[in-house]
């Protein structure tokens, strides 16, 4: 296999626990990557993707060891090299772009210095030559003002900028191979789309091979030539990207693809029950316990990774013929479950002209004549109907979480009123009567952080019960706990488990049960599915929809994933920099006419379809604070009209005589409709041209690039 750049051969990696028990992480992995090829490596969390990526660089986490097999990079067996030889390969021939760029840059060293270090170590340049190269690299990854950026410390860059800096560092020596470990997870959709375009450009220009690790199938569809799917430490399917998304042959691949919410299909997708086993603990196929095709042979005998009829499509399944018998696109359309909407006509919560600020003048500030900065959230007027799901969407910094924090009573509103059952919610939680607190509950993004690890489920659920239902006695509370657990589809025996003994999805269900323990009217869901794997996400969405139908609960749902929003929401409010841009039902928001910002967001979405290509409208330059006057989106808007946008707050325009769909823009509705039609035509004409050159329209290039931290406090 001399034409391979990387050849992983029957690689098995494991570690011993403190009780000397062997735990496998990788089980007999075979994988080849050719020069210039981009391989997407997909799988749910904990299936060994990162371990495989690190093993290709000859790196093992401390405690892990190679139990069998080999990894060849070129002609070197990376696990037989000494540390000197490894240092000479790492960074020079094979470089890593890590998941969390912010944590992967040394906090005490300037960004430029860290890139310089990579250049000096790996590219044999020094002095001013190296410095020129550093500036060149920073420019190449399209960081504005490379000279200035190089002088900054990592924490002074925004998430997207940090990611670009890390890419620049990896490209320092023009390596033959890049390992990308979830490099865009945690970034905004727009930033993600920009970074992926950048990577594609660089790779096609330099002919670099890439292994792109991600759990996000939309990203994988966008970047990969070939896709390898991992499950429980094994590769279970390995094929061309189009085959993988159009004709997946492994039941797990199908299950995974069916669990992703899609823009093109309405309703909630199918979820996959169960969770991956610890590698090597199943006697037969590791997926057998979760598989609907399971037969006797699956339980007794491990399937081999075999080629389908002499093609390059490899699958590890006994029953692939049976799986392939059903056409995937048809199967896909059948699994989506539409939920019947049951919103009442009365309002649950009414916000009118709400403004929220984090600005707290200090003692010294009062004596200065500086004017107060514009409020983080301002001029929010909207009403949420009883029993409906209102989604708040927007990039990070758009004020979604701020609004939810105010509704929950964690932050007072500065101006305006929030009406909830004759009560004004603009005050903090300690000034609200207990019944109001009971009626508004919050579910957090990360159940690991929101559940106390030292309390078991019974204790966690007991707290709202004790607080809001003081008359309940112990037995009643116990029965109620079991009932709540059953409603979130967990067994009553989970009462005695601690958060550490549960999977991510189970923990989030407990968090949901805790919110419903108070028997609330309104539940605030802050990115409740974004820390979960897709297969679990679908189940949680399904559960939330069911609970809503049973109890007519009102949801205010925050999500950055617009496909998730489409699946669960009734109405959507699009926010930018704490100001509303567009408000309407799901169907209205996801079809033209669009607010320019909504169009930007929707254009950047990555769909699990290899033929789909994102449209990049506005730049992804982060803004620190809303502008003092005019439209909040003025600085990034691709269609800005100039002075009027900078000076005057745009008016609300209704798109039709009936309905509530309104857009806040100076451009007239007719014009917005026409613009979209024109663009469709251009898109059809110049599809190929656009592919390599994303049309980035800079509205205003001298946008401030100072520290993103400033806005957080």
């Amino acid at each position, binding site marked *: 296999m001399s034409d391979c750049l990387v050849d992983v051969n029957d690689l098995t990696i494991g570690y011993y626990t403190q009780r000397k028990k062997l735990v496998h992480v990788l089980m007999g992995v075979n994988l080849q990557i050719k020069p210039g090829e981009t391989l997407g490596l997909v799988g749910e969390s904990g299936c060994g993707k990162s371990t495989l990526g690190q093993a290709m660089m000859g*790196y093992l986490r401390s405690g892990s060891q190679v139990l069998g097999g080999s990894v060849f990079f070129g002609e070197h067996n990376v696990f037989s090299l000494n540390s000197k030889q490894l240092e000479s390969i790492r*960074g020079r021939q094979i*470089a890593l772009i890590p998941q969390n760029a912010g944590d*992967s840059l*040394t*906090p*005490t060293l300037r960004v430029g210095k860290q890139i310089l270090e990579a250049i000096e170590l790996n590219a044999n340049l020094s002095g001013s030559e190296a410095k020129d190269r550093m500036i060149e690299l920073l420019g190449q990854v399209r960081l504005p003002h490379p000279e200035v950026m190089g002088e900054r410390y990592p924490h002074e860059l925004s998430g997207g900028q940090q990611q670009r800096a890390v890419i620049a*560092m990896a490209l320092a020596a023009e390596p033959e191979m890049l390992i990308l470990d979830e490099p865009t997870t945690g970034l905004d959709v727009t930033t993600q789309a920009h970074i992926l375009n950048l990577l594609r450009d660089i790779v096609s220009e330099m002919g670099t091979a890439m292994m792109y690790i991600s759990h996000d199938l939309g990203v994988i569809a966008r970047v990969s030539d070939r896709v390898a799917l991992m499950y429980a430490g094994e590769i279970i399917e390995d094929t061309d990207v189009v085959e993988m998304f159009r004709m997946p042959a492994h039941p797990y691949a199908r299950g995974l693809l069916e669990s992703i919410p899609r823009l093109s299909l309405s309703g909630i997708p199918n979820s996959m029950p169960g969770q991956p086993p610890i590698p090597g603990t199943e006697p037969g196929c590791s997926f057998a316990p979760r598989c609907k095709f399971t037969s006797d042979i699956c339980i007794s005998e491990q399937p081999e990774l075999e080629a389908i009829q002499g093609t390059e499509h490899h699958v590890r399944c006994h029953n692939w013929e049976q799986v392939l018998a059903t056409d995937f696109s048809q199967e896909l359309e059948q699994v989506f479950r539409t939920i019947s909407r049951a919103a009442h006509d009365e309002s649950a919560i009414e916000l009118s002209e709400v403004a929220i600020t984090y600005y707290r003048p200090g003692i*010294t500030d009062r004596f200065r004549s500086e004017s107060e900065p514009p409020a983080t959230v301002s001029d929010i007027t909207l009403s949420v109907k009883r029993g409906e799901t209102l989604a708040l969407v927007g990039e990070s910094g758009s004020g979604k979480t701020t609004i939810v924090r105010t509704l929950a009573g964690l932050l007072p509103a500065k101006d305006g009123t929030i009406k909830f059952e004759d009560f004004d919610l603009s005050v903090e939680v300690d000034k609200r009567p207990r019944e109001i607190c009971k009626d508004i509950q919050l579910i957090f993004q990360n159940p690991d952080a929101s559940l106390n690890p030292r309390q078991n489920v019974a204790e966690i659920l007991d707290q709202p019960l004790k607080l809001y239902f003081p008359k309940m006695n112990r037995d009643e509370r116990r029965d109620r706990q079991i009932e709540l657990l059953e409603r979130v589809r967990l067994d009553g025996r989970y009462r005695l488990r601690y958060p550490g003994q549960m999977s991510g999805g189970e923990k989030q269900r407990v968090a949901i049960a805790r919110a419903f323990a108070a028997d609330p009217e309104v539940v605030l869901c802050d990115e409740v599915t974004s820390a979960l794997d897709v297969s679990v996400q679908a189940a949680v969405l399904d559960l939330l929809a069911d609970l809503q139908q049973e109890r007519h609960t009102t949801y205010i749902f925050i999500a950055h994933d617009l496909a998730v929003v489409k699946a669960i929401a009734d109405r959507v409010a699009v926010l930018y920099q704490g100001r509303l841009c567009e408000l309407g039902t799901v169907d209205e928001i996801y079809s033209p006419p669009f607010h320019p910002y909504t169009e930007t967001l929707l254009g950047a979405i990555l769909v699990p379809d290899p033929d789909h290509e994102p449209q990049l409208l506005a730049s992804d330059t982060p803004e620190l604070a809303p502008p003092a006057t005019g439209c909040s989106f003025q600085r990034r808007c691709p269609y800005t009209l100039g002075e009027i946008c900078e000076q005057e707050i745009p008016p609300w325009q209704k798109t039709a005589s009936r309905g509530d769909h309104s857009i806040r823009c100076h451009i007239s509705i007719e014009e917005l409709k026409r613009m979209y039609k024109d663009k469709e035509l251009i898109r059809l004409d110049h599809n190929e041209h656009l592919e390599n050159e994303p049309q980035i329209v800079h509205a205003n290039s001298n946008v401030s690039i100072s520290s993103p931290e400033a806005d957080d406090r």
Partner: protein
Amino acid sequence: MSTLIGRRLILAVVTLFIVSLIVFMGVEALPGDTATAYLGQSATPESLASLREEFGLNAPVHQRYLDWLGGVVKGDLGESMSKRKPVADLIGNRFRNTLVLATAAALIGIPLAIVLGVIAGLTRDKWPDVFVSTTSIMGMTLPGFVTATILIYFFAIRLEWFPAITLVPSDVPVLELLPNIVLPIITLTLIMVAHILRLVRTNMIDVLTSDYIQMAKLKGVPYWSMVFKHALPNAMLPTINVVALTLAWLLGGVAIIETVFNYPGIGQLMITGITDRDFALVQGIAIILAVIYIALNLIADVLSMILNPKLRTARGH
């Protein structure tokens, strides 16, 4: 950042003022006064009255506090009654001696602790770490006077390398003092190394498991370059405050060690002051110690701000 330092300075002055009040009131609250303590058994009502008159002890408390505070601000710590000398003169040489001992102990102990901590962190759970950690813990757990006594037994009595106790007066030139400080330094080092070492070790271990160290390794950075450029600066940052506290502890004169070795330092002077009920002396030393603690903590905070880019470049606050 300058506003922040300014704010901290103002806060430091306020703290000092409060400390001075507490010190004065505390000493004032003790039973008896300097006059009774000074005259002891031979006190007659007349002699007490005249002595009180002489030292102005009859004035109301707030008057005396303000007088004393006014003096302190000008550098006049008052008059020691038992020694019949200005407190400032008494403290002068003693403080110099403590300074000599503290500097020497700090110069040896702190770098030693850091180096050992780094070694322990790098060789986590292997024999160098186990050895260094256990020994340092033993050094810390043994009470200072026990260590001192053992050291005196071996090095002074058996081997006769160093004097067992200091027999020179407090105002000898520094050079004559030097042979006397060797055993106290060893004792102090043994006590203080463990604190700093444990902290450096833990921080080093934390930093070594961080994403940026993994990144540095995968970038091809050679081992020692990784340790010194990427790991050490980050591991050292949280250590600054503990180093400052250790320095303050040393400068305050470690009373027990000074007493065991009969070393003429400020700690020993304080013990004498307390037994003699020499209020002016005790107040003076307490104020000096407060200044040292506050100043060193302030320096440590400013230093960690300068060395930590996250704090240095933060705006506002």
